[in-house]
């Protein structure tokens, strides 16, 4: 299998109508926006896209729609994460047949299976497809079983297509130890960062970055990513601090802050689905004012930029 390095991966939100349905017209605009603003791959139906609040059918439709609209301009990565192993594996198989370039999956929701069953869960999802398979580790988002070096190594033994780990733990102990041990077993194994903290991740070997803030400030995200890929980490400190500051503002009101920030930048994608409460008017005004006060956003695109 040739090595697939995703690069800078934007993770779009999922727009909803007032009636709480996926707003496909807006999603098409959003895809075009990401493609025009520096993405090298799109990951769809991720946690940033409220995957956990989408039905199985909606997730399948979203993948098919994205692949149809992207028309091969960048690879499309599909998230296939669920509580039940067979459900997640079937979703992965569907995404592959729809033309996805790779699958990402995280540990099961709610359950805390023993390590052997956790390996089995991920091995069955990855084993359902031939395309590259990445595991996402986001202990801050998923209350569930911990990933360990041992589990990663066992999965490498089980799956030829297990290509890398998308880390959102940001934990230096885990990242360094994991990538060192994984590369000793599979030299082409990749560390990817699931959040925009590329300086530390890149310094210890990360090749790619997943970004939700790219919907808000794609220029800044791209700048950070490019400098890090050139391994100029001292130079990257300033954009890293700027993104960190932006991130604190966006997550201030909680998960709904991401869609609030999209709206404040002129790209209204509707509200979040239950049980994530939408931002009220006052919370939105506060967020918009805080974003307005950030000098780093002045050069960032407003609106959809459709010419």
């Amino acid at each position, binding site marked *: 299998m040739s090595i697939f390095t995703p690069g800078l991966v934007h993770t779009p939100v999922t727009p909803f109508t007032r009636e709480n349905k996926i707003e496909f017209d807006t999603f098409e605009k959003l895809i075009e926006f990401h493609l025009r603003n520096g993405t090298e791959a799109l990951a769809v139906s991720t946690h940033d896209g409220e995957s956990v609040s989408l039905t199985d059918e909606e997730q399948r439709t979203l993948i098919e729609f994205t692949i149809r609209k992207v028309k091969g301009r960048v690879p499309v990565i599909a998230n296939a994460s669920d509580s039940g192993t067979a459900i997640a594996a079937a979703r992965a198989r569907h995404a592959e047949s729809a033309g996805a370039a790779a699958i990402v999956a995280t540990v099961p929701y709610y359950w805390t299976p023993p390590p052997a069953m956790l390996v089995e869960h991920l091995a069955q999802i990855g084993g359902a497809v031939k395309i590259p398979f990445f595991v996402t580790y986001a202990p801050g988002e998923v209350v569930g079983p911990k990933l360990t070096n041992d589990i990663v190594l066992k999965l490498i033994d089980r799956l030829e297509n297990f290509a890398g780990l998308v880390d959102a*733990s940001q934990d230096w102990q885990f990242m360094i130890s994991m990538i060192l041990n994984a590369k000793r077993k599979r030299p082409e194994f990749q560390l990817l960062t699931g959040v925009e903290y590329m300086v530390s991740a890149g310094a210890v070997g990360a090749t790619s970055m997943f970004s939700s803030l790219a919907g808000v400030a794609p220029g800044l995200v791209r700048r950070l990513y490019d400098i890090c890929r050139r391994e100029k980490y001292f130079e990257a400190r300033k954009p890293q601090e700027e993104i960190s500051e932006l991130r604190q503002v966006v997550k201030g009101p909680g998960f709904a802050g991401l869609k609030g920030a999209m709206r404040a930048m002129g790209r209204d994608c509707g509200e979040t689905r239950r049980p994530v409460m939408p931002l009220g008017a006052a919370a939105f005004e506060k967020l918009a004012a805080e974003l307005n006060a950030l000098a780093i956003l002045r050069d960032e695109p407003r609106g959809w930029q459709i010419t």
Partner: protein
Amino acid sequence: MSLILKGVMQSTVTPLKDDFSIDLPTFEKLLDFHVRTGATAISWPHHKGESLNLTMAERKACAEVAVKVVAGRVPVSIHVSSLALEDTMELARHAQKIGADAIIAVTPYFWRPTIEAMYDYFLWLGTSIDLPLIAYNSPHHQGAAFMGDLTRRLSEKLPNFIGMKDAGFISEKFVEVARVALAMRPTFAMIAGVEFLAPSVPLGGAGSYSSAGAICPNLCLQLYDACVAGESAKARELQYKLIRLWDLFRDQYPSSLKGGMVLMGRPVGPTRPPLPTATKERQEFIAGELKDLGILDTEPHGW
């Protein structure tokens, strides 16, 4: 009160005799070894020095020895954290009296204090002594973490708040504290709790409190130099070597570290319960790893 910390700093283990009493002559040799092999500062007794298993009298006596043996060659800071904060204050005042250069204190044990309680505590400590203060952030063990805002508030009030030992090792947390602290005080020292230098130096990190320095001081210095020089590929390779050592030592720290020191010709005795002492089998396993890493050939043996 300006003390600027940077580089590879060593927090010394506490050598013990077979009966678990403190081995002062070996402690003196070890302090001297660290200074001679490139430590830019000495700090004692971190958890690595079994601080919580020492009596108040032992902590005071050894602190005096540390200041005397180092004799101004590099700065000496004293870790004053105790279960009871009254003891912490007593150790802090003692450190000042004996001529230590700084104190270091972790967020309080057991209680999982609120941010307000941590602010109140560090303010009390920092205003009660006339020494530079280094805060020690250990969220995985303490259940309470420093954030940017707490750091900013303490920096505003405490001119002697000069640095932080970060043992969180989480990118976002590090960036958030560093960007606030360094903007307010450019010489503020963000010190990685062990040798996580590749991920921290580009973000403004000042250096490390070394874990492996008693085993392989040369390797630690090479990593720091590569990071400061921006030699990313070299830094990464050295960081990978050092994670193998940290993976050896981190469980039941510092038991295995003390076990490894035997192999380097610098025996420092057992570890006090409830921590185990490295068995012969464990030492053999460590020896294999040290050999595989080439450390037995490239690092100083003996004192």
